[in-house]
């Protein structure tokens, strides 16, 4: 009998089965479900229609207002209020108010609410982030969230897996963001449609947990159901003092079945830039240095973690933000913000001429806190560069890693980090 992939093992365990096969429809128990201030109001409406008295487990239904908070307008305030009232009514233990919250996919791992071997669904497409810890996690819509809030279960189709093997040593300034952008550029925005992306190899083992979460986070940008990194000692070091529940390390069997195996030599890679209007439009940074920009955003569930801010600060050291642009730095959580203050990063950003904001998804999806005017161009460490993503439909978004973002903020155009060294 064939071996199983890590994704298949987690799914089988949660379906109460010994093994599962790609294509199989299974009913699974979920460990945690998640909603935010955009998706949860719809889920709450549907949940109330089911007619159950309360949620399946008040400790495992997590609500994080993060997209349009601190409330950007009256209507957003009404939506955030619905989450607050639902959390109170059902005595949810994991509702995160402004001032204690963070960008959801930075927050949940940090708070130890997700761990290796978990099965998590969230009404946010970037829920796949937790694959960076060796969990199976995937984004769903509000109605699926509502059903799981009531049942503690959901149904899934077992995905086929693509194995990516990253060989070689990562060059300086190249990280998880570049690896994921590079492969999306190779396979396209539907290159892993309905599939699991498994990230392996020496270059992945060398990545810190933040970089691994960045990679899993953008699996959805290739159409994938989930992205996953085999858990190891790096994972253990991150979760052992955080995890609020027991966790399990699953590993793919050597004879597991893959739809494709793709090998990549990272040793010659440059930082990657995704040009408008799809994440697959990638080019090495050295082929993008003639693009003038109006705004740089460092933050989001993709690159708003402490090591991202440390990297940006390192590049900014001794420099000032170009007179021609705005640099926005948005720490992913309050804990990250506080740590960045303790390390002097926030002071450094402000002295360089950047705006530093409380955690929010804000500009990433064109919500607030940095909307683009017609014809403006942004470079962002976020995850999507669709038409109108950060504001006016005739504005543009380019995607990159935090080091490139910082160097570009100094030079007023897309720039490689080595240009400001």
């Amino acid at each position, binding site marked *: 009998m064939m071996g199983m992939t890590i994704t298949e093992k987690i799914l089988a365990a949660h379906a109460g089965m010994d093994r599962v096969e790609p294509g199989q429809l299974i009913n699974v128990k979920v460990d945690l479900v998640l909603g935010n201030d955009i*998706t949860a109001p*719809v889920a709450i409406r549907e949940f109330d229609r089911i007619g*159950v008295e309360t949620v399946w487990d008040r400790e495992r239904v997590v609500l994080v207002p993060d997209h*349009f908070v601190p409330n950007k307008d009256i209507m957003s305030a009404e939506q955030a209020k619905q989450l607050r009232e639902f959390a109170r009514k059902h005595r949810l233990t994991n509702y995160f108010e402004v001032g204690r919250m963070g960008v959801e996919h930075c927050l949940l791992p940090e708070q130890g609410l997700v761990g290796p071997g978990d099965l998590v669904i969230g009404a946010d497409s970037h829920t796949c982030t937790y694959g960076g810890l060796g969990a199976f996690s995937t984004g769903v819509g509000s109605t699926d969230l509502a059903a799981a809030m009531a049942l503690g279960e959901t149904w899934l189709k077992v995905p086929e897996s693509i194995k990516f093997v990253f060989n070689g040593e990562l060059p300086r300034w190249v990280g998880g963001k570049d690896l994921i952008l590079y492969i999306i550029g190779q396979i396209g925005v539907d290159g892993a449609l309905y599939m699991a992306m498994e990230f392996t190899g020496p270059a992945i083992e060398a990545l810190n947990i933040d970089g691994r979460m960045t990679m899993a986070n953008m699996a959805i940008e290739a159409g994938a159901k989930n992205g996953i990194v085999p858990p190891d000692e790096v994972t253990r070091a991150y979760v052992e003092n955080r995890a609020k529940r027991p966790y399990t390390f699953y590993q793919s069997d050597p004879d597991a079945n893959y739809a494709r195996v793709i090998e990549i030599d990272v040793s010659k890679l440059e930082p990657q830039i995704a040009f408008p209007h799809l994440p697959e439009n990638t080019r090495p940074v050295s082929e993008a240095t003639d693009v003038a920009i109006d705004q740089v955003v460092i933050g989001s569930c993709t690159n708003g973690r402490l090591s991202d801010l440390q990297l940006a600060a390192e590049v900014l050291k001794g420099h000032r933000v170009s007179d021609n642009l705005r640099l926005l730095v948005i720490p992913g959580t309050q804990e990250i913000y506080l740590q960045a203050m303790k390390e002097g990063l926030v002071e450094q950003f402000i002295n360089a001429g950047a705006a530093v904001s409380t955690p929010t998804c804000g500009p990433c999806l064109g919500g607030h806190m940095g909307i683009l005017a017609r014809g403006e161009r942004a470079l962002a460490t976020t995850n*999507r560069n*669709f038409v109108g993503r950060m504001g006016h439909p005739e504005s543009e978004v380019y995607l990159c890693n935090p080091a490139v973002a910082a160097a570009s903020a100094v030079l007023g155009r897309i720039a490689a980090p080595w240009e400001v060294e």
Partner: protein
Amino acid sequence: MALQGKAWKFGADVDTDAIIPARYLNTSDPAELAKHCMEDADPEFPNKMQPGDIIVADKNFGCGSSREHAPIAIKAAGVSCVIAKSYARIFYRNAFNIGLPIFECAEAAEAIEEGDEVAVDAARGIVKNLTKNETYQATPVPEFMQQIIDAGGLIDYVAKRLRPTDQA
């Protein structure tokens, strides 16, 4: 409901930000969302489409965000169904869950031209191009999902499971 109307063509990788931009997501009211349906793909779409009309698109329709507001906006605008070569997986699931009929049919997506009058036999997955007098076969729906549709969508399906006696 009869699925028949004029075809409006869209390209590949139509993302959910194009279907319903996030600047309108400070509400989940279907009527409000409908006013901005497909706005960043075609700003005139909400004004020029008629109830019953059909969206015909290329591959990977609905990619990007998990926002259920996307199929809700399309349904509330009066679009009777969507036909595409393929769908992003979260959109696909959301459409079934909220009761927006969608069909996967590469042949139809290729052959149908903007303005063609199209009718769909949902039960059999047959797409008829009345203008060109052609028919195309859509990919059958997985049996599991058919049960959800038969129950009237996911919420009714769950309600039935949790309170079986109420349904008697």
